């Protein structure tokens, strides 16, 4: 007797973020449960042009050009005047971007009491990784504070 076993499912986006972070040198992950439905949380995350400069203050403006499928090209202009081009993928619950010098990850999954949101990121400059990690952890925590405020404001 052969047992018929067909299972079709996949990792949730936050677990996926942990995998990507573990495989990316110097990558930092900060997670938080936001007391709001997934749709409201992801509406903020998915609105890169409108919302990202609000919760990441080092970014002044962001321009998004749609690519094939879930691919995007993103150009970020920083407050210091520096410009960075990112290759990006954006789909419900998952955003990952990579420029020559940094990576940016955002993932969300519905959980009891709201939505688990994960923020990951790293510098791709080898010499700066060790120095950057504790700074990134603090920066991401503050970023998630602002992100949470934006979710609340949009819900009002």
């Amino acid at each position, binding site marked *: *007797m*052969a*047992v*018929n*076993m*067909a*299972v*079709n*499912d*996949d*990792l*949730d986006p936050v*677990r*996926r973020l*942990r*995998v*990507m972070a*573990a*495989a*990316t*040198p110097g990558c930092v992950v900060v997670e938080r449960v936001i007391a709001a439905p997934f749709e409201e949380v992801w509406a903020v995350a998915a609105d890169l042009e409108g919302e990202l400069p609000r919760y990441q203050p080092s970014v002044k403006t962001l321009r998004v050009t749609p690519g094939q499928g879930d691919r995007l090209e993103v150009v970020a202009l920083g407050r210091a005047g520096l410009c960075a081009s990112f*290759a990006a*993928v954006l789909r419900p619950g998952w955003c*990952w971007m*990579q420029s020559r010098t940094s*990576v940016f990850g955002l993932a969300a999954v519905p959980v009891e009491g709201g939505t688990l949101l994960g923020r990951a990121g790293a510098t*791709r400059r080898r010499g700066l990784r060790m120095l950057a990690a504790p700074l990134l952890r603090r920066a991401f925590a503050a970023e998630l504070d602002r992100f949470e405020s934006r979710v609340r404001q949009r819900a009002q």
Partner: protein
Amino acid sequence: MVDPELLRAAQGGDTMAMNDVLDELSPYVFKICGAIAPQHGPDAAQETLIAVFRHLAGVREPAALRGWVRAIAVREAVRMAKRNPPGREAAGERAARDGGELSVEVRDVLARLSPEHRAVLVLRDLEGLDEEQAAAVLGLPRGTVKSRLHRARLGFRKAWQ
């Protein structure tokens, strides 16, 4: 199979390529881990993929990637299932929560088998490996796999009735 160029880019630290390789591998890993460790499939799949991506640079032959990933997934799922035996939660409830195409009844029956028996059933009946290949993945003699498979199928049939 993962595109060799994509794999090379991921091995070189291109995280967009890593994202694409993860797209290819994660449903496969999730399927194996979910069948062997019904209660801890997502945790086992996460740990498997972390191990895979941390050691991805060591993969020399793209054609061997799937087999290597499968071996890690089986080992990780068996380890996690043995470390966390089923608790008070009913198998049927777990099955409903874990989702997937596998029927609740089949998941319920599988959950009553040992992790080692689930592993051999997955390799033979889900993955379609022959006894020799399954023995290589499990690190066991072929005869042991044969007898374990016989007991696993017998156990499945008894639990099903």
